[in-house]
């Protein structure tokens, strides 16, 4: 059985479960199904407004499906999970905390870290600093978020999403607001983080090269109401390099995904 299983899910905004059509509600997902294996890196791509982010909210338990079920490790999701790390497109670092304290935030919420005695604090700080060092922010723990560039803020956000070693990492267009060079640099950072932790990752993006560069499988979602219309496995060995993104095989795969999206839009 798959680790994450979304089976025949409808999701309607602004209405109640069981309400008929034509009631001024929006159908974001229609009969959407998706499975993700444990330790797999999966990307979800699609036109804007197709319900990609909604898919993540379903898995994180932030929203409930109107009908159909979401299961993680065989368990139906009814409320937000504790085993999830999440990073967003905009920096959501808390502006009143320095970078290290931002990264430490999940450890103040999630068990067993939450109930650990204060004496563990030094160990935790060390852990945050080590993690920050792996993304090149070793010397920035004491800085405030506004003193960091956009790319550095996203690096810190990735650290915060991973500090409690979640089983699932959900990324909602984490590099969407960055310039092209910074973005490509951060692909490498994320790849390294994943090679070290090997958690299950679901990345929502509209950047096809990013999806192919990072993932094991790229799922293409149709325009609203969204459902998965194509799934392309990515065969390239890791660690992948930026040079690979210009090779023929890579470019062909990107084109294939783009084709699925335009076909899905026309349909």
């Amino acid at each position, binding site marked *: 059985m798959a680790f994450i299983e979304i089976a025949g899910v409808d999701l309607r905004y602004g209405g109640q479960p069981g309400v008929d059509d034509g009631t001024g509600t929006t159908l974001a997902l229609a009969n959407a199904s998706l499975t993700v294996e444990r330790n797999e890196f999966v990307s979800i791509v699609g036109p804007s407004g197709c319900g990609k982010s909604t898919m993540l909210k379903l898995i994180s*338990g*932030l929203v409930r499906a109107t009908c159909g079920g979401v299961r993680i490790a065989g368990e139906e999701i009814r409320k937000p999970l504790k085993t*999830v790390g999440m990073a967003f497109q905009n920096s959501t670092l808390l502006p*009143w905390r320095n970078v290290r304290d931002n990264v430490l*935030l999940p450890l103040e919420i999630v068990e067993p870290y939450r109930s650990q005695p204060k004496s563990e604090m030094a160990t935790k700080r060390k852990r945050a600093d080590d993690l920050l060092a792996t993304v090149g922010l070793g010397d920035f723990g004491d800085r405030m978020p506004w003193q960091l560039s956009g790319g550095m803020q996203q690096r810190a956000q990735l650290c915060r999403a991973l500090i409690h070693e979640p089983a699932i990492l*959900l990324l909602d267009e984490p590099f969407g607001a960055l310039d092209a060079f910074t973005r490509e640099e951060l692909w490498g950072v994320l790849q390294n983080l994943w090679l070290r932790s090997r958690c299950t990752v679901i990345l929502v993006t509209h950047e096809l090269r990013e999806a192919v560069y990072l993932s094991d499988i790229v799922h293409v979602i149709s325009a609203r109401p969204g459902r998965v219309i194509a799934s392309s496995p990515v065969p390239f060995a890791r660690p992948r390099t930026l040079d690979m993104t210009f090779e023929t095989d890579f470019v062909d795969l990107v084109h294939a995904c783009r084709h699925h999206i335009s076909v899905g839009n026309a349909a």
Partner: protein
Amino acid sequence: MKRSTVEKLAPWITTLGLFTLWQFAVMAFHVETFVLPTPIEAIEQIYVNRYPLMVHGLATLGTTLLGFAFAVTFGLMLGILVGSVRLAYVSLYPILIGFNSVPKAAVIPILVIWFGVGTAPAVIAAFLLSFFPVVVNVSTGFATIEPELLDVLRVLGATRKDMIVKIGIPRSLPFFFASLKIAITLSFVGTVIAEIIAGNNGIGNLMLIASSNFNVPLVFAALLVVGVMGVGMYAIFAALETRFTSWSVRGSGLGVEHAGGG
């Protein structure tokens, strides 16, 4: 001169300039002392009546701080409730607005009927005038929390209390401190009005007695004392604000300002 020195001196220079202007205007137009005294005459009265002014000034300060303390406690709790619970916002806001539109000077006679003449109506007036900006600002701070910030905690399985403690309160602190600066000055207004209408001590009472004796310079001396106390308290809360919410200022030198009613 250095920029920071200029900024430090600027308020003193403007105040001095204003007093000079006042002094020369009174002299040039030969205004009678019982209509408008010169600032020098007013300051002279501060010296002459320094003991009564100090006693009554301290009484006013105590009354104001007591009313202000109630306003902050009550305003903070109500602000968190109104800002974080939708139903509380919908049901309480119209009443709050309506309440704040009532002129507080008109309420004081009622307070006198209930509590008699003295300190009680003044404390309540100080409270009534100053709690509103605290409620409005704190609730605004809570209501404008970016939903993504809450999602960050929600996906970790945080409780409602976690979200208020880790996000709501720190996020609202700049709003809260901005409201304190407004509320403390409004508290003085409430106290002095109540002392004028129904006091048996305090600066307001002193002013009432002085003006019935046509001692207008003393009235102005009392006003100056209230003004100085207001600026002093404002400065204390501004310093606290800088100390606790420096993250929201980023060196612009200007904090969040939100006007309140009065």
